[in-house]
């Protein structure tokens, strides 16, 4: 009966599914050494970048796609993907926001991400990535005053090559895995952040990714370095048009926290999830990893994953510094035919390192939701502690929730706690809410939000509100 209640909820469509008509420079589909040289040349990259890309490409040719994840999809033809597409620019590229193509500004406005600096998110600096390139970064001046570097990856390669060369690939090496290796070879843009010693970044930083062009893969790369005693909170959002074919998104994010530094990285992932029958949608195959290099450093991942046809990502923390802290807070929602295989890895290397994993999976329709997590304590990591809590909420009889926890402990002083449970949204809970006069929609959203509260609490205020709304939209119509 609860299913009947839930089925009554009306369907709401993916509201970011529009396409921007814009002239763009687009490569022919296919991947070869020549394509990589072309990307590198187009970006006017120094030799070390090109060589790094080529090494990655050579290595990639020896790899085959991973098959261990609990997801199903037809084999991807990597030669049919377009590896570079950028909105055409009249001159050398916009020098300021005034020069950004109005079409693009309009697009971001429609997405609720105004690229002018007096907007609703006035306290947030935004880097907007459209297909393969960054089109605008706001508040650069204000950030520069604090010594913070926040720019597109391409710009960082030009302006701060020494930082890029020093840190690129040090957390996620180009040999890391199939998708990260592919990304290393072909990535076209992304965001770069450097917070100097002792600086608390004066505002939230945010990157907003938009895939627009058809048949195009998006391969962006984000590198965030928090120098000693610094602090930064970074947010990432993403959407894509509704298209019948699947599109590949293979990003890499590297975070580096030095002594006493703290990085908080939040993601609200809302790539197009495909339609009810599972046609179209983004393949979100992403490698995200942070290194707590310094003592007392801290890296915290928070992710709200509601989009994508398939999600394959494990934002992880390598706890190298003594007393360092790693956190992972996740809400993953799979509806209709969506599949998610997500979780984290906490690698304890330093002494007295601590990690916390809170994972909430919500499955509806025919969605398949997998938590996969690794907690590894190395021999030298004395007094490491981990607390893991995995919870799954099922909203239909046809969805699935799966948990694959891996725990490897090589030091006897470690304390590891793991809690997991699965529950079905209760007919009793629904009836209780309805008896108090709440509609089914309100009751479901209240129960689901309550379930996710622990994770929402980790998000910056205005994004917590967005996440809550997003969850409501993604759930409507799907349950039953």
């Amino acid at each position, binding site marked *: *009966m609860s299913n*009947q209640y839930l089925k009554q909820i009306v369907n709401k469509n993916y509201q970011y599914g529009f396409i921007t008509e814009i002239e763009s420079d687009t490569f022919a589909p296919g991947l070869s050494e020549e394509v990589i040289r072309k990307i590198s040349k187009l970006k006017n990259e120094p030799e070390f970048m090109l060589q790094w890309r080529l090494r990655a490409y050579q290595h990639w040719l020896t790899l085959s796609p991973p098959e261990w994840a609990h997801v199903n999809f037809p084999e991807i033809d990597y030669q049919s993907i377009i590896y570079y597409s950028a909105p055409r620019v009249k001159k050398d590229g916009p020098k300021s926001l005034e020069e950004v193509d109005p079409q693009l500004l309009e697009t971001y406005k429609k997405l609720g991400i105004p690229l002018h600096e007096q907007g609703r998110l006035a306290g947030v600096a935004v880097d907007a990535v459209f297909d393969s390139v960054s089109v605008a970064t706001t508040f650069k001046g204000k950030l520069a005053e604090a010594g913070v570097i926040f720019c597109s990856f391409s710009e960082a390669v030009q302006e701060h090559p020494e930082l890029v060369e020093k840190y690129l690939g040090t957390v996620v090496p180009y040999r890391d895995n199939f998708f990260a290796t592919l990304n290393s070879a072909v990535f076209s843009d992304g965001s770069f952040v450097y917070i100097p010693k002792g600086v608390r970044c004066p505002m939230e930083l945010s990157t907003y990714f938009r895939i627009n062009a058809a048949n195009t893969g998006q391969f962006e790369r984000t590198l965030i370095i928090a120098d000693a005693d610094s602090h930064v909170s970074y947010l990432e959002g993403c959407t894509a048009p509704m298209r019948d074919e699947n599109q590949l998104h293979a990003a890499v994010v590297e975070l580096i926290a030095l002594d006493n530094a703290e990085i908080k990285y939040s993601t609200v992932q809302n790539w197009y999830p495909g339609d009810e029958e599972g046609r179209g949608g983004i393949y979100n195959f992403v490698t995200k990893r942070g290194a707590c290099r310094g003592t007392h450093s801290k890296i915290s991942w928070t992710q709200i994953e509601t989009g994508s046809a398939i999600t394959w990502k494990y934002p992880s923390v390598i706890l190298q510094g003594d007393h360092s802290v790693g956190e992972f807070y996740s809400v993953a929602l799979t509806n209709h035919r969506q599949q998610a295989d997500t979780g984290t890895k906490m690698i304890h290397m330093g002494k007295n390192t601590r990690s916390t994993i809170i994972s909430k999976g919500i499955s509806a329709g025919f969605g398949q939701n997998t938590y996969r997590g690794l907690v590894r304590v190395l021999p030298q990591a004395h007094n490491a502690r981990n607390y893991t809590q995995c919870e799954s909420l099922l909203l239909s009889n046809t969805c699935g929730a799966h948990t694959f926890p891996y725990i490897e402990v090589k030091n006897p002083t470690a304390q590891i706690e793991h809690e997991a449970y699965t529950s079905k949204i209760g007919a009793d809970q629904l009836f209780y809410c309805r*008896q*108090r*006069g709440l509609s089914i929609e*309100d009751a479901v959203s*209240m129960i689901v939000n309550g379930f996710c509260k622990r994770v929402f609490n980790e998000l910056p205020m205005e994004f917590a509100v967005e996440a809550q709304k997003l969850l409501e939209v993604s759930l409507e119509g799907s349950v039953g």
Partner: protein
Amino acid sequence: MLIIKNLHATIQDEKQKTKSILRGINLHVKAGEVHAIMGPNGSGKSTLANILAGREDYQVTQGEILLDGQNIMELAPEARATAGLFLAFQYPVEIPGVNNMYFLKAAVNSVRKHNQLPPLDAMDFLTLIKSKMKEVGMDEKFLSRAVNEGFSGGEKKRNEILQMLMLEPKLAILDETDSGLDIDALQSVAKGVNSMRDPKRSIVVVTHYQRLLSYIVPDVVHVMVKGQIIKSGGKELALELEEKGYGWLNENVG
């Protein structure tokens, strides 16, 4: 206020076998009255309470339910609630992560909306709920806790009564609200219920035991056995049941 005419209901058990649980209930509760429905385990008392509130686990095969003259048989549970029907649950559920005050505010404003009243603002709501909490002897810390999560049995029941006081229903049905309560809790629950007695309101108390009825004195007592009301009387009937048990009544049931 509440009129039940020849109500029959069935439920399907795990083997998909249809089992009859209500077999022709007739009941008339006038405005301002308190009725008690007593009976042994499995007599159908709680089923009746749940069917009145619109629980869809049961099939109503025959009969009618009128609330304040309106036939509510086709109304969804939330529509019955906003029309003024309140059920204090025997086993109130926990809703993890949902703030108790937030929940109550949503409920109160949903009912107010139905009655074309503006929503209560945060300050008015807080003032009101604090005074009601005092009435049922609840600590204010329960406002910031999740709905019923980690509440003791008594705290859950007090929370039900608090909700009732806030929602001010036309018809309140208390489903074994006395079960699992110590004497202090029982007294504060009874106090809350008695404060709700009003010429415009009806209260139906479903219970096993006479105990609660010494605090909430009913106008009419009904005895329900095997899905039928087999005897009705004044408050002394409750005392008689307490003394003799239900056995002597069973003989009258076919």
